Structure formats: structure tokens, C-alpha cells
């Protein structure tokens, strides 16, 4: 009987692994692209004195992508070399910070970026079975959790005009058995669906030949199929994940850095400030619920926690009513931001470009309750698992948790 229980437990464990673990933070901006977490994270830490720093690991080269947490790993990408042509995927043990494996590749596409950015700008994504690491050079790597290569694609090798020498940053999304990439630039501009098992191209749709850094967002609909949202300067498109066929389009002038957020049956995205759409059951073009032009985000994407919407507008954090778009309060922060903040237990954690962390307690009003330096720039959103926060600076990966 006991062995039957063990077998059952192992089978369950396998099932959880294959379909992604609820405890994982394995996507750009966390589960469902909404970086809301409810762990008991420290409100401050000291990277010099090591207060609340469980471990710190050196990274090869540099990068601005976010770490992801999958299984018992934290996975980070980086790039190095004279022209950032060397690509890395590195996996660390979540508990010890010990490097479990490291894989390196040579970029096959364009590697130039603005000095602020890096070839390792897109955040990797995992379905719990495989890790998909993507780079500004449009190289896409699929590895299993032990670091075994499943496949490697050079999308700019296939479409040589794909690239932006300012740097690309759109992160891939997983939609069922399809990995979706959004490669929008002045050259070969397209979105593509790639078979997650083999890396083969399933579909490719042309996109406006304009620079865009927004990331695709996938969600499952009632019939079990997946829809992918593609935001670009001319509007928001919803396409079928298996075919790339258009499901609906909302033509609006949109931001080209922030990414859309789907919460329940609503979509929040950067159009005319911020716009909320309500999905309709028929799957046709959704209606605008509200539009708030005061809620203009620059680089950070929206966060929604129940009835509260948070938008980082320049260096001002704005809290609005998610039902109406009405502004509740705003607080000015210090510095310039690229990273979308993370919300945990009523606190927003902001990392600015100069390495200053500011923690804002949210409620009826917002208040900066902690402010401290970490000494290195942080451009990627942190990952959170349980009571631990993982963030990556240019050259290091940190685990923050209480002793």
C-alpha cells in the first residue's frame, strides 16, 4: 500500500512538473504577467553587510533580463564578448546559490545594443519542462531543466534583416505547445509561433516595420485553445497561438515598450495612457471599458491587484481604481526605471537604473517606507518564490530572504 502511495506521489509530482509548478515564477513579470506575490519578503537588505542576503552569485558577462524560478532552479541569461556575441544560460540552485549548470552559445544575429541594454535583454520563460532563452540577437535556445539542449534556433539567421541595433527586448511567451516570439523592427518584422518540442516554425506573420519592445502575452480561452496578445504602436492584436491567424484587432496608438496585462476577462495596456478592455465571450473585438490618459507608463508594465491598478509613469508611481481608471494617489520616486516593480504583501518593490531600491507601502495612500542602495543597476523585474526574492543586477544574482 505504501509503495502504491509513493508511486502515486511520484506520478503527481511528474504531472506538476510537466505542467508548470504553481510556485514557479517562470515568465516575464511572473505568473500571468502580473507580478503580484504574497510571500513574506524582507522590506530591506544590505548587500554589503549581507543582512537578509541569502546568497549572491557572479554571472558571466552582463545582462538586463529578469531571472526566472522553476523547480528548484533560478535561471538567468547574460551575454559577453567584444560585441556581446557570447550568450549564456545559467542555472543556480535556489537554496544554495550554487551553479547547477551553464550553457553558452554564439549569437547568429545582430548583437549591437544601446550601452544601457544588453544582448541578454529578453527574459527567459519555462513551462516547467523546458526553458526557452531568447536574446536581442534573436537567438532562441531550448534546454531541459538539467541543461540538456533540446534545440537552438537563429531567427535572424533565417531572416537576416531582423534586428534593432538599439537592442531588442521582447520576451517570449508559451501558449500551450507553442513558443511565441515578437520580433518587430525596421527590417524583417514579424511574430512567429514555434513548436516547443522541436523548434520548428509553425507560423510567421508580418508585423509593422517599426521598432517595438513589447512582449507577447498568452492566455487560454474556453475552447481550450490559446490566444496571444501582440501590442505594437498601431494597436493590439489577438492571434490564434497555433496558426497565427488574427482573432481580433483593436486599432489604437499604443506604447512600444510596455506589455499588455490580462487579468480575468480584462486587458490593461498602454494606449492613450492606459486602456482597459473587456473580453467578450464570443471572442470578437473587445470593448473599451475605460481609458485614462493620466496613466501613461514609460517602460514598466501595469500591475493589477484586485481593484487597484499600479502604473509607473516616469518616476511617479500612480495607483488607480482598476474598475474606473480614476487616480487614487501618486508618489514621486527617485531615478529612472526600466524594471516593472513587484507587489508583495502590500508593498511595491522598485529597482531603479542606478541601483536604488525603494519600497512603497500601498493602501489608501502610498508611502516610501524603505530606500537603500545595492550598488549595481537593475533593469529586470525580480522573481519571487515563497519568502524569497531573486533579482539580478548587471553582473550578479541575489537571493533575498530572512535568515
Amino acid at each position, binding site marked *: 500500500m505504501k509503495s502504491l502511495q509513493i508511486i502515486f506521489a511520484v506520478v503527481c509530482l511528474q504531472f506538476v512538473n510537466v505542467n508548470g509548478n504553481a510556485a514557479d515564477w517562470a515568465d516575464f513579470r511572473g505568473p500571468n504577467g502580473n507580478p503580484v506575490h504574497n510571500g513574506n519578503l524582507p522590506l530591506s537588505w544590505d548587500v554589503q553587510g549581507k543582512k537578509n542576503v541569502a546568497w549572491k552569485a557572479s554571472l558571466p558577462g552582463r545582462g538586463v533580463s529578469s531571472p526566472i524560478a522553476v523547480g528548484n532552479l533560478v535561471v538567468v541569461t547574460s551575454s559577453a564578448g*567584444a560585441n556581446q556575441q557570447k550568450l549564456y544560460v545559467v542555472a543556480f540552485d535556489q537554496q544554495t546559490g550554487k551553479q547547477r549548470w551553464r550553457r553558452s552559445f554564439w549569437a547568429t544575429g545582430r548583437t549591437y545594443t544601446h550601452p544601457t541594454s544588453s544582448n541578454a535583454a529578453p527574459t527567459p520563460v519555462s513551462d516547467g519542462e523546458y526553458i526557452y532563452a531568447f536574446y536581442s540577437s534573436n537567438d532562441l535556445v531550448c*534546454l531541459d531543466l538539467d541543461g*540538456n539542449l533540446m534545440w537552438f534556433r537563429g531567427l535572424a539567421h533565417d531572416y537576416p534583416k531582423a534586428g534593432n541595433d538599439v537592442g531588442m527586448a521582447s520576451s517570449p511567451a508559451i501558449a500551450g505547445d507553442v513558443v511565441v516570439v515578437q520580433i518587430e523592427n525596421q527590417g524583417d518584422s514579424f511574430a512567429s509561433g514555434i513548436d516547443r518540442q522541436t523548434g520548428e516554425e509553425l507560423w510567421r506573420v508580418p508585423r509593422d516595420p517599426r521598432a517595438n519592445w513589447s512582449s507577447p502575452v498568452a492566455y487560454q480561452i474556453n475552447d481550450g485553445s490559446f490566444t496571444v496578445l501582440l501590442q505594437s504602436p498601431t494597436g493590439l492584436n489577438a492571434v490564434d497561438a497555433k496558426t497565427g491567424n488574427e482573432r481580433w484587432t483593436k486599432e489604437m496608438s499604443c506604447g512600444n515598450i510596455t506589455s499588455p496585462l490580462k487579468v480575468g476577462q480584462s486587458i490593461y495596456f498602454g494606449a492613450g495612457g492606459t486602456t482597459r478592455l473587456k473580453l467578450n465571450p464570443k471572442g470578437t473585438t473587445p470593448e473599451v471599458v475605460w481609458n485614462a490618459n493620466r496613466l501613461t507608463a514609460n517602460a514598466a508594465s501595469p500591475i493589477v491587484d484586485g481593484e487597484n491598478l499600479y502604473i509607473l509613469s516616469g518616476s511617479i508611481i500612480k495607483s488607480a481604481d482598476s474598475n474606473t481608471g480614476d487616480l487614487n494617489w501618486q508618489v514621486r520616486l527617485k531615478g529612472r526605471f526600466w524594471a516593472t516593480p513587484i507587489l508583495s504583501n502590500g508593498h511595491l518593490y522598485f529597482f531603479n537604473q542606478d541601483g536604488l531600491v525603494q519600497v512603497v507601502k500601498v493602501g489608501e495612500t502610498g508611502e516610501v517606507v524603505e530606500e537603500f542602495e545595492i550598488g549595481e543597476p537593475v533593469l529586470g523585474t525580480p522573481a519571487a518564490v515563497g519568502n524569497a526574492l531573486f533579482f539580478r543586477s548587471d553582473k550578479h544574482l541575489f537571493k533575498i530572504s530572512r535568515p
Partner: protein
Amino acid sequence: MQNRIGSTIQLLDYFASRLIVICYGRFWVRYSFKTKILFSMCCLIAIAVSAPAVNGAEIENLTKTINAIGSKGLGHVKARQAVAELTKCDADQIVLILEGFDSSNKLAVNWLRAVVDTVLENALQRGEEIPLDSLMEFLDDTDNDANARRVAYEWITDGNPALRDRILKTALGDPSLEIRREAIENAVSRALSIKEEAAPEALKQLKLTLSSARDLDQIDQITEEIESLGGEVDLPTHFGFLVTWNLIGPFDNSGTKGFDIAYPPESVIDLQDAVEGKLGNIRWFEHSSEDRYGMLDLNTIMPEKYKGAIAYAHTTFESGKKQVVDLRLGCVNGNKIWVNGKLITSNHVYHANTSIDQYIARATLNEGTNEILVKIAQNEQEESWAQRWQFQLRICDEFGTAILPTDRR
């Protein structure tokens, strides 16, 4: 080399199996049935344990499968199976995999690199040793694939800085630009360490190092140090920038439509003729860049700062022989290049950053005079960061080593 090692392994396999057969035969005659069974099982286990999971010939076939990968996922299914097989290799078979590297397939070489790293990393985790001697032998042969040698170098030098320094001392001209970069970094450090007490020797070493340097940041650093010691550096010559040009413009590029219009210079180049431009008749004029990086700033060279405009730049290149070269362009504007009337690159991209060697195109130069024509298209963006109208072009080999015209002054 690959065939030689493969044959040797097969030969050893043969002799080992013959030995087992002979021993087994003698045992069969002498001992009881129980002992025979026990001995047979031991032999089977010994064979299973000692034989590599993948033999030399299989490795060759598997790397061929990976090297057959093509665009858009072509060959992935078979290649994925090949990777799974190859990762079963023993660490001491790693050179056989490295010999399968063919960097002309930029996709496949990444698959093979992952295999090598996986095999060696797994071996280390099992407490096995890395086959340093065979890796060193592989690294020493500069005819081997540059990327494969780089992988060997990384595994040899990982955690062994003394060995790393020893290898790098003789690697200033290494065909692997990644290895060469580290060699230059070391050589610069050595030169700078004697800068105070032996400036002339430091200067001599820095100049020698510069001649091998191909990366912009290292060239800049070395140049600065040489100049601080009173030395001179001719950067346009070091890079191979083309600095003397005939220019004509503006032609119309309103709405960026002029990019695809073939204005007269694309058909006939007559440096004496006036042709109709955007604002009336225009003529060719000569300009030589004084910039260290061969940059031609059209906003200052042309009579006015034009928007929605196109300029053409023409020059000739005297080549001592027929040769394949890289034309490397840095241009923040839309651009096209023709060599002897043949279009070799076209990039309709505006104000998305620029750098030396931003666009690389291959071309064949004829022996004698070669005609080079560049089209530089400015759009109508008004943002302050979208005002530059400029280009820099150099000719070099695939490693970035300057190829100079025979008549360069």
C-alpha cells in the same frame, strides 16, 4: 585527424574483443558449469562497463546529422536525437566531437557546443577528469575550427589561470578572435606593468599588440596608451577606412520613398556632369575625412543640413589581386552599397543606433580599379536623436584585418 582517431579506436576495440574471446575460451575448457556461468556474467558486465556508449564512427555520423541543420527548424528532429546520443559520450571522446565542428554552419556549431559542455560538465560532476592532454593537442592545431578550439581553450583554462597565461603568451595572432582578445588583454597588462620604469619597451610592446588587435574597445585602449607614451597611431590605416570620396546630393527622400528610386548615380557616374537633385542641379565634389574612424558627417559636409534627402558617395579602390573582402559599414541612416555596379547590401533602417562594422557585406574585388558607390538616406524624423546623417566604410578580411588599396598614401 578525425578518421585517424576513429580508426585507432576501432582497432583497439577489435583487439580488446579478441582478448576476451581467447580468455573466455580457455576458461570454458577448465572449470565447472557454475564457475562458467559466473565468469560469463562477469565478462558481460566488463564489456558493458568498458565499452563507450557511442563509438568513433557513430560520433562522426551523429555530428554529420547535426551539421545538416538548416533554416526554420529543418533537421531539428534528427538533430535532437543526435544530441541525446552524443551526450552519452565519455569525456575522453570529446575531441571527436570537437572535430565535428564546422563553423560555416552557425546554427549547428551551437548545438555541438552544448553537447561538449554537457558531456564535460557531467563528467566533472561524476568526479572524472577532463582530458586535458588531448584538448591541449587539439587547441595547439590552429587548422582546427576556431570555435571548437575556443571551447577546448575554455575547458583547459577553467580554474587554471597559470595555464591560461601560458597559452595566451603565444596567442596574439590566434585565428580564434575570442582567444586573441584575451591574449591582447594580457599583453596590454604586461606592457602597462613596465610603463613607468621602461617606457620605450612598453611602447614597443603596445605597438606590437595593436597590430594584432581587432576589437574596437581594445584598439581604443591601446591607442590611448601609445599616445600617452608619445607614440603615434594611424587609426584609419589600422582599420582600413576609405577616407577620400566624391559626394553628390541632395536627392529627394520625402516619405523615405527615395530609398528605392534609382537616381542617376546608380546608372552612370560622371564626376563632371551636373544632374537634377531635390533642390536643383547638383554636382559631385571631393571630400576627405579627417576623422580617426573615417566618419563622413554629411550634415557638415553638404551645403545644408537636409532632411528627407539622399546623398551618394563614390570612390575607387586599387586592388593588387582579385580577392574576396568584407565591406564594413557604420551608418545610422538607410544605406546601400554597390561594388563594381553590383548591389552588395541594402538596409532601410533609420536612427536605430550605429557603430563601426554595423553592416558587414562580402564582395569580390577585381585586380586593378574597383568602383564603390554608397547611398546614404536621411529621413524626416524631428527628434533630437534622429538628426545624424553620416557613414564610415572600411575594407578588411573576415577577421577584421585592414585590406589597403595599393595606391594608399
